[in-house]
């Protein structure tokens, strides 16, 4: 893989185009955990929190060591008693409590101030957001709607968010069913998506790359497989992607059989802009082929995986809303051919 700045991060992937075909597991093998926010944060909405975490852990580890040593020392040091039956005086030892509690209180006070300063930093971006989108949680995938003043540039996609690098992005959070939580840990903390409410979260990536996200509020049997990706790109690359996504699907005529199967079997839930498929219960597939992952982050987007997912969804992701489709081999290849045109 082509890591531009350093070798350790799943999050830092210089050339997105080159990455698109690489399956996720191979990419992340021998790499850090892709959700490891504690050591890897890449934006002003998460970096101050990471530093706060380091400072807190350092302070708390030192406190733990001191208290453990005190305890061990207290247990092991020689205890003298002139009269073995004597029980000591009750009022001794208050100095321990005064000093111990006094020092802890001062440390806590300082920590509280540092915490509040950090909260203030990550709560809001310093600049107006360059881009606004709405992400809606569904069981178990994410609908992404890009806003734009120009209605022709608004579009809907799923499970994959592209953002221009170095710019704050406002994400409005909604839920279509139960409570989910939007979490792209290397870019920001998590925020719940609550039905009937619109929450907000801002993200900003300093470094180009692919950042993994995950639902963190238990939302049903497939909560484990509700992932998303945020792809941070250079401004011009992002614009190209945006232009491509805002277009309707350009379907060729030689895949009509596959398109017909799609309209018969899939269009009740899935939509493809530019066709009669307008289902709204499942991910918009207009530019399916441009995505890196399918099945809510469970599988990489290869033709084989796509066929497996269509025919064995309930084995791969038990309880998912996607049924395991019963199709003949001919139907499958026609459908695949059609789906492969959705660039």
């Amino acid at each position, binding site marked *: 893989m082509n890591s531009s700045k350093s070798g350790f991060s799943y999050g830092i992937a210089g050339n997105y185009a080159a990455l698109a075909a690489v399956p996720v597991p191979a990419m992340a093998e021998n790499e850090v*955990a892709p959700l490891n926010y504690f050591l890897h944060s890449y934006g002003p909405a998460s970096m101050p929190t990471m530093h706060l975490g380091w400072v807190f852990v350092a302070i708390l580890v030192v406190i733990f060591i001191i208290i453990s040593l005190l305890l061990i020392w207290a247990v092991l040091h020689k205890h003298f008693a002139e009269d073995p039956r004597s029980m000591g005086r*009750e009022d001794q030892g208050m100095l321990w409590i005064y000093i111990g509690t006094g020092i802890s209180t001062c440390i806590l006070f300082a920590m509280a101030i540092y915490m509040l300063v950090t909260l203030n930093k990550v709560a809001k971006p310093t600049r107006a957001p360059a881009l606004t989108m709405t992400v809606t949680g569904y069981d178990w995938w994410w609908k992404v709607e890009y806003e734009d003043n120009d209605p022709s540039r608004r579009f809907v996609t799923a499970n994959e968010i592209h953002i221009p690098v170095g710019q704050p992005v406002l994400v409005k959070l909604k839920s279509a069913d139960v409570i989910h939580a939007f979490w792209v840990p290397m870019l920001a903390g998590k925020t719940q998506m609550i039905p009937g409410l619109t929450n907000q979260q801002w993200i900003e990536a300093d470094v180009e790359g692919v950042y993994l996200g995950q639902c963190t509020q238990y939302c049903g*049997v497939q909560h484990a497989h509700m992932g998303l990706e945020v792809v941070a790109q250079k401004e011009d690359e992002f614009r190209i992607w945006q232009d491509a996504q805002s277009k309707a699907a350009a379907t060729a005529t030689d895949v009509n059989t596959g398109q017909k199967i799609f309209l018969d079997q899939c269009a009740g839930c899935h939509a493809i802009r530019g066709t009669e498929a307008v289902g709204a219960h499942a991910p918009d597939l207009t530019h399916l082929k441009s995505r890196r992952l399918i099945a809510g982050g469970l599988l990489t987007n290869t033709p084989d995986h796509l066929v497996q997912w269509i025919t064995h969804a309930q084995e791969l992701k038990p309880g998912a809303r996607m049924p395991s489709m019963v199709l003949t081999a001919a139907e499958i290849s026609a459908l695949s051919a059609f789906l492969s045109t959705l660039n």
Partner: protein
Amino acid sequence: MTDAAQDTFDPSLIRVPEIGSAPIGSAAEICLTELWESAPGWRGWLSTVDHKTIGMRYLVTAFIFLLMGGVEALIMRLQLARPDQTLLTPEQYSQLFTMHGITMIFLYSLPILSGFSNYLWPLMLGSRDMAFPRLNALSYWIFLFAGIFLYASFPLGEAPNAGWFNYVPFAGLEYNTGPNIDVYALGMVLLGISTTVGAINFIVTLFRMRAPGMSIGRVPILVWGTLTAAVANVFAVPSVSLAFFLLWLDRQMGTHFFDVLNGGKPLLWQHLFWMFGHPWVYAIVLPAMGIVSDALPTFCRRPLVGYSAVALSTMATMLLGFGVWIHHMFATGLPALAMSFFGATSLVISIPSGVAVFAWIATIWLGRPVFNTPFLFFAGFVILFVIGGLSGVMTAAVPLDLQLNETYFIVAHLHYVLLGINVFPVVGGIYYWFPKFFGRMMNETLGKWSFWVMFIGFNLGFFPMHVAGLLGMPRRIYTYAPHMGWSTVNMVTSVGSFVFAAGILIFMVNMLVSLKRGVPATSNPWDAPTLEWAMPSPPPVYNFAVIPFIASRHPLWEDRLDEGAGRSSLDQGYLLMDGREMIGTTPLDAIPDVILKMPEDSYTPFFLGLFSALGFVGLLLHWQDFTVLMVLACSLSLMVWMWPRKALVQRVPDIKYDKGVAHG
């Protein structure tokens, strides 16, 4: 506790109880045994109101629930030991983690502490029973039936499956159509009755049932802990009972409290749940901290350092504990200002905990520690308490919590708190009081083995969870992919959890072996200072042959401890044997002011509990006629319970009545 007799005060009606002694074998002592003994066989078994029997039942039942919750955890750890395992289906996993949470939080951790307090309070306070013995029995029976109720749907594969926090709308009818959530909702309302009556019983007992002279500043810390927890429960439990009742109405009666489409608010559930949930956390650790504060000094051969500071910090923790519930909801999109307030309170709450930690360390430092098994558990507990408290500071920091929340870091934190601060003191407490409960010592060698295996297994199992959380592993996922980087920590955690389970197993073997073959215990085998050690082991049915007079915090150490001139009188005291009687004292100074007539054994608590549980079964299964019938049966049981009886009115033979009152 009061009646008309007190309003029309007439000195001539006062009966002054006789003061004397009643050594074992004396006529008075035999008479007392007959008065307080329960009927033999199943009749006594169903009707007893003896706090010791009820306390032991609480302990045993809660321990069985601990084992059930533990087995559920082990099955989950097998599933998570390696990535992409398919041992469990996602639905089975959901039910397991939900039942694990419900079991450990509701059916184990508070009931086990109620068990200790029920058994020990009257012994520590110099009383012959709790203030309301029949209510005490009712509280146990309802707890038992609620536990069975909550488990009844498990074998059918329809157990609660929305997590113990049970967030709507996932727990609503639209997304959860089976009986799973109705079982949880009704079971919790039922259990709430048990907790509430139990809490009221503790509060009244503390303020009215102490031996003369045991002023409020002389009660053991366990009593402070349980009192604080009980007061908190009286305020916190209505919140959760209401939440579950509203949820049940939404699901079964078509109301819209949480129904988004009709203006309901899912956040309302979170507020109601956590307004209860957080105080509850303190309710299930403060009494356990009390166990340590009382028992640790015995093994340090000196009184606890800073008794007043520790008692006050206990209450301060609880008070602050009512103002931190939002820290469970930092990710719900609240304004930063509100979160700052609750984050800061959550940091401040560690100050009173610090007081207790320094008091324990100072006690060990200034004392002469004896390394018996209970001491190991209490000293080990201090380490775990510190780790749990410090990781709590991390989660209180709002921005950090927005990352840590709902990850395994929280799982690690809460297990350090609940296992470290509840299970370790509980097991240590059982080692400590086992001789008092059963008249036999537990085996020391097995005891030390059980401690080290538990302590190492616990840290091996739960410490890596912190790391898993920092690596971003979310909670409540039934499996994970190999490339997420969580495989090693999960394997270590699974191994550790089985080592911990082995430690629990050694402890259980030790209990069973010692029950049969343990060395017979004297009345005070540990040379402890508090009142429960003043009587034979196991205690006689009437607890105290004479009601003692208490002059200090450490009645059994007075000779060796300079606490003032006063000496407690344990052999000479009020005889009180006109039926089941106890002395009632004033709330703060414990000056005797009334003779309390205690009720005899009764079947009504059992039947009232049974009929209410069956009423809830009727509600669950929509058997309306049956439910109505059970409500009538409950009313009938209550009428029998409340029926005025001459035996409960204080009488001086044939002539006059004094101001003693019926109650119970």
